[in-house]
């Protein structure tokens, strides 16, 4: 599990460091998955039932990370969407999606 998290992070980083906007967005998404899984695994894996009261299991997994993750997933989605539209817009206006070419000014 942890190794998968590591691999996701590695791939995400590699994609973020590339020059194409789309790849960067993909990288951020993968990063998000990695973070989610990391957070979830920090809460302890596979102990007890789902955190629903009234089920038969006497114990359940830690609900707090799950609640955090739920927020994280939704926000991740929001930022991805925004980023995507932004890059689309940037491409339309500037005609490139290469980061190096997007730099037009030496000093702001």
């Amino acid at each position, binding site marked *: *599990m*942890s*190794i*998968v*998290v*590591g*691999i*996701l*992070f*590695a*791939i*995400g*980083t590699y*994609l*973020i*460091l590339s*020059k*194409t*906007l789309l790849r960067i967005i*993909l990288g951020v*998404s*993968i990063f998000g*998955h*990695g973070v989610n899984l*990391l957070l*979830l695994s920090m*809460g302890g*894996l*596979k102990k007890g039932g*789902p*955190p*629903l*009261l009234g089920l038969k299991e006497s114990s359940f*997994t*830690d*609900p*707090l990370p*799950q609640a955090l*993750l*739920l*927020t994280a*997933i*939704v*926000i991740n*989605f*929001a930022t*991805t*969407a*925004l980023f995507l*539209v*932004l*890059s*689309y*817009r940037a*491409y*339309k*206006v500037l005609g490139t*999606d290469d980061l*190096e070419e997007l730099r037009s000014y030496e*000093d702001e």
Partner: protein
Amino acid sequence: MSWFFLILMLPFFFALLVPPLHKIITPKVHTGWFVLWVPLIIFIELLLNIPTISAGKRILHHLPWIPTYDINLTMSIDGLSLVFGLLISGIGFLVVLYSIYYLSKHKEALHNFYVYLLLFMGAMLGVVFSDNIFSLYVFWEVTSISSFLLIAYWFQRDRSRYGALKSLLITVFGGLAMLAGFILLSIITNTHSISSMISQGGAISSHSLFMPAMVLILLGAFTKSAQFPFSIWLPDAMEAPTPVSAYLHSATMVKAGIYLVARLTPIFGGTSLWFWLVTGIGLITLLYGSFNAVRQTDLKALLAYSTISQLGLIMSLLGLGSAALYYDAGAEKTLYALAIFAAIFHLFNHSTFKGCLFMVVGIIDHETGTRDIRRLGGLMHVMPISFTLALIGSLSMAGLPPFNGFLSKELFFAATVNASGMNFFNMENLGILIPLVAWIASVFTFVYCLIMVFKTFTGSPKYVKSSREIREAPIGMLISPIVLGALVVIIFFIPNTFVHYLLGPAWAAVLPSFAQEGILNVHVSPWHGFTPELLMTIGVVLVGLLLYKTFKKWRGIYRLYPQFLTLNNLYDRSLDGMESISSSITKKYMTGSLRHYLIYIFGFILLLLGGTMTLGKGVVFDSSLDGPTNIYEIALLFAMIISALAVLFSRSRLASIIALGTLGYLVVFFFVLFRAPDLALTQLVVETITTVLFLLCFYHLPKLKKEDQPISFKLTNGVISLGVGVVMTIVALAANGSKFFDSISYFYEDAYELAGAKNIVNAILVDFRGFDTMLEILVLTMAGLGVFTLIKLRMTGGKEDEGV
């Protein structure tokens, strides 16, 4: 809140009033007429305190400021602060009066000028009356800032800005050092009050922080009082209007360092380091200043160097006097204590004659339009009053009777001669140097005094004819220097009145323990018989006259010293160097490329996280906490890895987007496996929408280019990504393996009772952490708005959106 505070804060209140007032009355009345009353009121108030103070009492006024940190506005009026206060307000009054005639009400930005001047006046009074070291520090820095503003008053001039910056850099550097010293001192003594520090006496001198504190505080005092090698800012500060030079840069602000040294003498005095630093630096400054003053051709620069040398003289006297604290009893003790008296006396005299001289130079500048000695001459007949005043001031500075400078100069010579007889602090071998240096410096002082008066006022008129006729200054401009010049003479004839009411108490304030023993008695008289000091004065006059006559022959020695080794050059070059080095370093890493910044971020994550984990012992691998794994899970994991790699390596956009979608759905599976049904449902929905969004957008996005980057580019990325991956793996493993705390989630087990919900996750989201969720919705709304705006913008954006 006592009356005294209101009086002291008057300059600050008035500084607020000046700008609106200026707007109303200009150009009918000169703004200075309104400002004039401020120093006058303060002066009178302080005069009223003289009877109490000269009776040996001390007045304390207390006003809490930041009581939590024991930082309060405690104002203590004793002899020393009273002398300074009178100087500040008295000369302040004269300077404002002078400035009314000096600065034109039509041309100058008077409101700025008087705001800065009042700011300075208030701050300077704050410095000398503060008993709390931190309020003293605050006022101290305000004087630096107002001095900066006043030097840059004619900010259109390049030299003004240069001089202002220089003075600010040097004095604030010293101020910061002083702050550090103050903090050390407060750690040693466990108090913020100067008077209680003094009462702790010599007990603190054995503390290990004692020496650093002393050196740091002296750094502050030396920079402020333009001691060598920090003296370079004072000549450049002469770009300020002459009233400012007369006020800040000769009479008051530069004496702040002297004040501090005098004030702290009971704490630090009596140690050999203090003695050598204060005396040694003072003597070097004295010699350096007087030697350099001789070659100046600008009258104000000459006065600046002479101020430096006189400050050095006072400083060295304070150093010599501190030796008195070395003795327990005996005649020597009184003898050396006399040096402190000489310092205060000379300080007072210096303010009178130097203020007078500055004002005269201002008059010359004002009337002729130049301060260059080479272009001046023969002014004696046109400006008889100015000539008289200049003569009085210069001869007093040169140490001739019948002027007050003679009295204090004699005391100075006496102190140096006494010092040569000291038999401690390694004085046996070096003792003879002190009177020698003092004597040589005095010869140069004599020479530049002669140059100043006679090159300017006698000889043939060399000055360039200006359009208007050169004549004596208006009477209003002459009042102030006349008052000061009169004081110079009056003090000579009745010195003991001043000693009794002003200088004596100040002396007692510097050496409180001596005052209690009642051994501080002095009677100043011009004639003591043929003492060594009189012979020294006669020698100064003879040799000085000789050097003045032969000046043309030996002035070549000034050219011997290489230009690039001067302190100014050093300052300029180090400033330039620092600027270019820091900008080149900044340019090197602030490339403007997002990728580089990301590399820095990831690099630091690697360094910090990886570093902490290898160095610290936080990493514990413990597989016992892991649950059992079965074949499906392993298959899932492999599927995830493959799909992630597919995102990485696929050539087409469609493939990578679909691979990303696959990855997302696989994560959903995991959520199910990990007993997180809510997460699974959410992820499912979100992933679907995301994929759809990607597919919508990808039509418009360009094709993925083959990453034809150089191998080094890929390698860097690869190394960093691998590093991040490894570190995160370790983090994940460690997080799994170690449990430092119990989960705090037990609280939510009561969800049903508390929130009426059986689903704990939901209860947390909408109930326990409701605010978080609300903010999350806010984020979503903002993102939605952003998306909407960006798309909308395309619709209405105009011409640049072709191809849609």
